[in-house]
């Protein structure tokens, strides 16, 4: 897949950017001119939920991207709004609602319906200026879009863990609730310890119950009243309609009779019936509302008296309510332990299943080690297979982390391309960030030149890079001028 062009319109100003098939450099001499914004616009045009930059609100812009997909050819994506995107393929237009139909859209662009793969493409091909160069195998690619190596591997190897993942999510939710409940229980214990008299008094509870019962009655009566009104209106409309028709009927003895509302069996009676019912129900409603306001007034007086006696702070009211909730800290803590154990077991099972496909893992590992070796950050002896899944990033820093991330990314891209059978663009925001010297940059460029010559490469930077032919997109003062 490659980006051919992107047209951005903000208010009256607009600009079109054209991209070449090979290397593209989005360049400005100074910082903060809009390079990152342009990259983000490109991702935004693919339907991703991308945070706006400080100067331009994406939602206020009209973005039209021309892309070429290996599977279906040219495609035009028009995003004028956050919530939907219009896609034109071979003069056929279709609208996708975002984010609900994002997967559907991406399955066309990338040619796969595998959600585990689709979810992780952006994290593989795009390195954000900030988070991108520290994202190794798990974490945020940009905004709320995440990357997860296990998920990607499961997608690439066709390993189905959906049931396990569902139960993992379910357990996590439950656990979260129990943990909160536990802290409430602890809080309750502490307030009970402070004072034994915090139980809610009967009067408050009873009058609250009375109020809610009356409210239920009030709702039922109101809805019945509404129903009657509607029926009454409909019947009256029919009565009117019949009168307008001016029909006549002939009886067997030859006399003719006009058809009126009065001689339609049941019509006038039903209207009288409904009027009477309406009156009875409104009077019931009135009485319920009267009782309700009586109790509320009483409650109010009570509160005022209490307030005069001792004003109850919000905290005290809360404490009373909490004290009235029957929860058992010990039972909750037992349940939490049980859930944690189950969750751990499920996570282990998922992880085992993910790593069981040695084909994808091995190939990922080999490519990663190859690039890492070339970049000088390790070799097959110093890097174990399990390093792919490491969660220890602290031991890496600066240029080493930067280069390791780069090696991982390229390995992901190779693997995804192998799976999808298409070429993906590589989008790098400020690859020279951090303290990376020219020699290291050159090593990275060399790999791109050699192994990724068929990929579209888009780099945003204030530096120049040594590629054979570069399409330079220069931004002077502002992205859209």
């Amino acid at each position, binding site marked *: 897949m490659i980006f051919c062009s992107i047209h951005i319109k903000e208010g009256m100003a607009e600009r079109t950017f054209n991209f070449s098939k090979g290397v593209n450099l989005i360049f400005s001499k100074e910082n903060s001119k809009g390079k990152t914004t342009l990259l983000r616009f490109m991702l935004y045009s693919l339907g991703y939920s991308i945070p706006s930059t400080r100067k331009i609100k994406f939602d206020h812009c009209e973005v039209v991207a021309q892309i070429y997909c290996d599977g279906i050819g040219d495609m035009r994506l028009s995003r004028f709004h956050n919530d939907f995107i219009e896609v034109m393929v071979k003069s056929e237009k279709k609208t996708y609602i975002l984010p609900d139909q994002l997967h559907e859209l991406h399955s066309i662009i990338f040619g796969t319906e595998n959600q585990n793969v689709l979810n992780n493409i952006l994290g593989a091909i795009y390195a954000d200026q900030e988070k991108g160069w520290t994202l190794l195998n798990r974490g945020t690619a940009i905004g709320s879009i995440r990357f997860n190596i296990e998920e990607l591997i499961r997608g690439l190897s066709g390993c189905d863990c959906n049931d396990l993942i569902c139960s993992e999510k379910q357990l996590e939710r439950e656990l979260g609730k129990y943990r909160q409940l536990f802290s409430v229980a602890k809080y309750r214990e502490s307030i009970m310890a402070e004072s034994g008299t915090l139980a809610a008094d009967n009067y408050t509870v009873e009058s609250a119950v009375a109020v809610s019962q009356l409210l239920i009655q009030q709702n039922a009566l109101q809805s019945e009243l509404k129903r009657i009104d509607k029926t009454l209106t409909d*019947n009256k409309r029919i009565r009117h309609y019949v009168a307008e028709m001016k029909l006549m009927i002939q009886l067997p003895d030859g006399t003719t009779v006009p058809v009126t509302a009065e001689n339609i069996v049941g019509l006038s009676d039903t209207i*009288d019936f409904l009027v009477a*019912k309406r009156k009875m129900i409104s009077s019931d409603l009135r009485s319920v509302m009267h009782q309700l306001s009586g109790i509320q007034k009483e409650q109010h007086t009570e509160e005022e008296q209490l307030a005069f006696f001792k004003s109850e702070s919000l905290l005290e009211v809360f404490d009373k309510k909490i004290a009235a909730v029957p929860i058992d800290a010990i039972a909750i803590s037992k349940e939490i332990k049980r859930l944690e154990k189950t969750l751990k077991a499920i996570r282990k099972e998922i992880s085992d299943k993910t790593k069981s496909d040695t084909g994808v893992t091995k190939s990922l590992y080999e490519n990663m080690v190859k690039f890492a070796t070339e970049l000088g950050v390790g070799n097959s002896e110093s890097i174990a297979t399990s390093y792919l899944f490491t969660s220890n990033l602290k031991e890496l820093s600066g240029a080493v982390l930067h280069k390791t991330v780069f090696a991982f990314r390229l390995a992901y891209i190779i693997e995804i391309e192998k799976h999808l059978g298409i070429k993906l663009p590589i989008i790098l925001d400020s690859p020279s960030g951090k303290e990376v010297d020219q020699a290291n940059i050159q090593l990275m460029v060399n790999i791109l030149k050699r192994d990724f010559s068929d990929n579209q490469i888009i780099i945003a930077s204030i530096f120049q890079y040594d590629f054979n032919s570069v399409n330079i997109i220069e931004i002077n003062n502002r992205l859209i001028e």
Partner: protein
Amino acid sequence: MRDRRAHSVLFGFDFQVNAAIVLMLENIKELSSLRLEGNEEDIELTLEGNRKILVQAKSVENASSDFSNVRANLKKALMTLSEGAQKVDAKQLIFITNSPNPFNDQYSRSIFWGPTRRPFSTLPSSAQEIVIGYLSTIAVPLDPQKFIVQVFPFETDDETERYKAVMQATNDFIGSLNANTSPGLGKKLLQVWHNNIFINGSKKDATIHLNKKNIIWPIIVLETDISRCEESFTEQFDAGVYDEVVHLYGKTIDSCCERVDFFARVLYDYNQFSCSKKPMDKCLEFVNCSWEDYKSEFAVPGIDNETLEALTKTVLYNVVRRRIIINKIKQGVNL
């Protein structure tokens, strides 16, 4: 401390309302409208042909022991009725009270025990003399032959005791309708009349004006409530099925009975359905023979066959039943 004056005003008004109910029920066939003048203790019944019955309602709080004011009440009532009789041509002029001794007279006392209605001509002579005596002080007195003294018990703060005579009158009236009504209707109806019909919405004007429709339709609404249903119909279902259907689909059933576009079709089919039985039995037979023609209307996803059958039959039954009850009651009260 309770405001005694306010309390006795409320008592007086309550008596006036209940007196109006008693008189209305006595005249229901001919009645066309009813008017209560709160401040004057007047009740005016208008009968067909615009004939009037004028009433003065005077109550005594401790009616069975306190007779100190009864003669003053009588005198005042005779004056007001005489004035009224000049303005309209009244058929009857009634003095209605809750005192069992309305003349404070030991000779006539025994005849006013329990609900009593005595035209002037049937009063004991001692009582007649008292009336004549008062009338002689009035410039244009009423015609004694139109004068009636009516008494019904109405005492204490206990509702059952206070309303026992009105309750009895209401039950007798419902019985006379012959509409096969269900037990407990009288109490409910009296409650509706007290709470919904005979109340005055406006605070400035103490007048209540009701026509026959206002008074009668609540009976029909109560009696056709879908939760009241003959056993002859419900016994065909398993125990509780009918109640459950009414509970779950009450709104649907009501709507079908009340929407002309639906009930007109059912009534047409019912009319075409030939059966020589009595209306309620014909209704049962009609429902059993025709329910399958209507079941598609209620066949929503997720409804089981038993419920579908019960729901369809319940709707049809109630449409026809409502029609029959409305006709019976309207005939019974000449509405």
